């Protein structure tokens, strides 16, 4: 995929399909240490140990519409290409954690890309899900917890057109502040 944010979207979509109602997404970019780490932790149905062991094999999928699952193998290949790795930890009935690492400056590392768009795509999912998203670039930090937003909104759904606009601008502007012109 041409952006890391598309791999993230794909993994978030897996969490939603696994019935998660709450997802924690952490992206940490450490420029001096030259690392980029992405962690996605969900409270979905999880996987058995045997399933986890084979989940990076593209011929393993529980989908019925197609016989290959590509999401995680592609994400893992992207990380490994950049001196990094992807790990899957999961417990049936509890949840799943995906952690991917990259060498930040690696020539093959795709740009982070439109994280605002990826988070929006999940927040607009027809299955209600909350995301706690924290993104750091060295000591700059962005954080959005949609459970808090929901509390603030009462009965108004996140998908309401005005809320949609609010979320989009909070994400876009907040993430832009992580990379002021001149940095990177």
């Amino acid at each position, binding site marked *: 995929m041409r952006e890391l944010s*598309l791999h993230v979207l794909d993994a978030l*979509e897996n969490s939603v399909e696994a019935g998660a109602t709450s997802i924690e997404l952490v992206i940490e970019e450490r420029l001096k240490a030259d690392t980029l780490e992405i962690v996605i932790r969900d409270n979905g149905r999880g996987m058995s140990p045997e399933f986890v062991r084979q989940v990076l094999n593209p011929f393993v999928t529980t*989908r019925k*519409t*197609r016989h290959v*699952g590509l999401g995680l193998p592609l994400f893992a290949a992207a990380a490994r290409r950049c001196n990094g790795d992807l790990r899957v930890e999961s417990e049936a009935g509890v949840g799943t954690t995906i952690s991917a690492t990259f060498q930040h400056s690696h020539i093959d590392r795709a740009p982070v890309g439109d994280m605002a768009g990826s988070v929006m*795509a*999940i927040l607009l999912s027809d299955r209600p899900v909350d995301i706690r998203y924290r993104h750091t670039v060295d000591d700059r930090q962005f954080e959005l917890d949609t459970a808090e937003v929901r509390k603030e909104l009462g009965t108004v759904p996140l998908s309401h057109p005005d*809320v949609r606009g609010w979320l989009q601008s909070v994400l876009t502007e907040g993430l832009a502040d992580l990379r002021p012109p001149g940095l990177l």
Partner: protein
Amino acid sequence: MPKLKTLDDLKKVRENAEKDLKVRLETGTRIIVGMGTCGIAAGARETMHAILEELQKREIEAHVSTVGCIGMCVREPLVDIEQAGKPRITYGNVKPDMIPRIIEEHLIKGNVVEEWAIGRLATRE
């Protein structure tokens, strides 16, 4: 601090939204975008973004939601439009530059863009 300001904004959004929430939920148009791996790889996120932008630009109110893989991978990105009393229409291979025309003809004029429609499901009551 920008954070306080945005939370204030949110309160205003809530106050305005609560007034007409019922009407909106009951009579609205629903637009559904497929967001499985194939959809994502084919540009579904950008298609969704174009839909949100066009709706905002034209001040049209519609419910936009995303769903996982529907199993028509070669036709991704897939966009469904559902309106009360009309068949649900599926558009295939929808790129962002096709969105203005779909919104103009389907949502505003009420005509299906036949050349891009690949499916149609019976009326929702």
